[in-house]
């Protein structure tokens, strides 16, 4: 088992000025499931490859169990990798696929056999050991790929978008299988994905990255409820957080002609912004459908209404801003005028220039 420390890690390709990864600082606890998430090109896979040793670290130190491993060869790091595609030998049996990595490490046949059968049992592959990959379903193949990593008994699992090639249904199934497997094996895992749903459902903690920089580290709940900046608010959550420009007054915030009163505690934190503009953030589910006219309520016309089953997504225009509202399924249609209200305790305020969270 292993803890990993990435201490001010930087990655620069061929001494160019631009950093692919900038000052990455993270302590991963033993047995933790960490998800690196962000848009393409944000540096998440490069960070994973630096942990694997496939990419040279330009600056900073990398420790596994307090041992500095910057210059340690990848094969000596005691890690196992799982990739996007199934990565199986098509002409080898499931057993052969799982055993191959151990054979080239010159392990004894009996030891290989024991490890393969143990992993097959955990993964429910005991009845498929003689089959070739083409005779397996997509989910079974991905389990074999996990098995190939598992038999090495590594200190750390590194997974690079392992579910990206699967269809939506299988992805949901495999998501829970990987999470279950992690709980059972308790191996420190670093998982890379661009899919925020995967990150939210699987991680103990999420690291959100953009342009080579960490934007926020936190539990799924923390990053969802209190995004560190506008980018995180927009990236985490589907549909994303709504953002509206506003001016701070003595009693609250003014969005064009609409004033939202705020509690004194919030106003204390926004005191320096009185008379200035900021960005108000609100999650789609934190805009309520109200039938009575309350002080904070406003009316809006529905541009588009999407019924998702138990919920409806409403696309509305509020004071010149397009907002998405998520409400329990209601019989509303495009063109209807409805009354809505912001849950004031769920409003988040971001600095207009830096786009970072104020409160």
């Amino acid at each position: 088992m292993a803890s990993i420390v990435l201490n001010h890690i930087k990655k620069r390709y061929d001494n160019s000025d631009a950093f692919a990864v900038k000052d990455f600082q993270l302590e991963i606890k033993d047995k933790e499931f960490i998800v690196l998430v962000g848009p393409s090109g944000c540096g998440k896979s490069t960070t994973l490859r630096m942990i694997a040793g496939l990419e040279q670290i330009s600056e900073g130190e990398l420790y596994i169990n307090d041992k500095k491993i910057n210059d340690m060869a990848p094969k000596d790091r005691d890690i196992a990798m799982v990739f996007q595609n199934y990565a199986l030998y098509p002409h080898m049996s499931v057993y052969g696929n799982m055993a191959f990595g151990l054979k080239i490490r010159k392990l004894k046949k009996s030891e290989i056999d024991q490890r393969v059968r143990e992993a097959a049992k955990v993964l429910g592959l005991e009845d498929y050991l003689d089959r070739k990959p083409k005779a397996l379903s997509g989910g079974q193949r991905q389990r074999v790929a996990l098995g190939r990593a598992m038999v090495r008994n590594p200190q750390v699992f590194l997974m690079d978008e392992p579910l990206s090639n699967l269809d939506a249904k299988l992805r949901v199934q495999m998501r829970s299988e990987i999470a279950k497997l992690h709980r059972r094996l308790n191996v420190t895992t670093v998982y890379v994905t661009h899919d925020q749903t995967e990150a939210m459902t699987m991680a103990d903690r999420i690291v959100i990255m953009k342009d080579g920089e960490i934007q926020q580290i936190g539990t799924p709940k923390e990053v969802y409820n209190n995004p560190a900046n506008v980018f995180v608010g927009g990236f985490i959550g589907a549909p994303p957080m709504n953002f509206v420009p506003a001016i701070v007054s003595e009693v609250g915030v003014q969005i064009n002609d609409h004033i939202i009163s705020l509690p004194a505690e919030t106003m204390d934190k926004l005191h320096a912004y009185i008379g200035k503009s900021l960005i108000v953030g609100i999650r789609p589910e934190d805009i309520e459908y109200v039938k009575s006219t309350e002080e904070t309520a406003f009316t809006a016309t529905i541009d588009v209404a999407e019924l998702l089953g138990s919920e409806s997504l409403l696309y509305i225009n509020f004071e010149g801003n397009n907002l998405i509202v998520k409400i329990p399924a209601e019989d509303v249609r495009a063109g209807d005028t409805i009354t809505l209200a912001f849950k004031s305790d769920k409003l988040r305020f971001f600095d207009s220039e830096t786009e970072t969270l104020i409160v």
Partner: protein
Amino acid sequence: MRLDQLKSVYGDALIDDPSKVTNPGAYDWFKTKDGTIFGVRNDHLSTNERRLLDLSFIPYAPKSLNRTKKQLLWARLTFNDTPPENTVQLPQSVNLIYFILKKFSNQHRDLESAIHSFFHNAYLTTIWKSSEEGIIVLKKEQDCSGELINLIMSDFYCDLFMLHVHEIAVSSLSRMYADHFSLLNKAQLLYPDQHDFQLIHLLPLMLLDAAQRQKNFDLTKWMTKFSELPHDLIKSVEIFFYHNFNLSTAANELYIHRNSLQYRLDRFYQITGLDPKKFKDALIISLLLDNQRYEQRIKDQ
């Protein structure tokens, strides 16, 4: 370049007799025109130095790497243009996968076994140009779309870059291999995130190479102009191309307004006279940007 000159540069890292070393896989081997074989430790060679030695000498595949009869036959045919005896039947054409390994720990036999297992009946042999570069020879075309790369990465903990060349006449192997390796070396420098290349996708690189060899066609003026462009303009154009000319999605990725991106593209046009929104101009811009990136990487190395 003479051998004694090289000796003064590399010192003990240069060995002029393969039989003197117990780990020939740790060296890149070459042959002089008079037939002297020498090796330079691969950890002392940069990509550029390796390329320079490739051009100045004949790459030599030591017997220790190409140990089977079949490997030696194909290595001689490819690297030394020595056809086998008449009794040996060879196919008219083959499919090749040129590869470069990074951080590989000299498990050549195991790697060959993995490659053989992967391609099975389509596999002919693997020939080694050096301890980290080689060619997989296949009887027929195989689609391995990155799967082999991930298998090798996870089993051998090394990075693998591949160039696929389809249906090449066996008689032209010796004429083509140096260009193909050179192309793969360039490609992995230029696109470090991409590991799998098809020859046709490297056509822009080949065209640039050919253009630069033309004495009357000087790219310097253009490259200077591009190098003086603000970084945000270049990045905006690259992202715009990446998003297949879609202003909205490109602007989203850049976290700027669509109109701001439009403004940047117009500005690029004003400065360079090349309009990123027009297909023909975009093609030229893309080539020049590739060239700029490649020259930068070479300079940095």
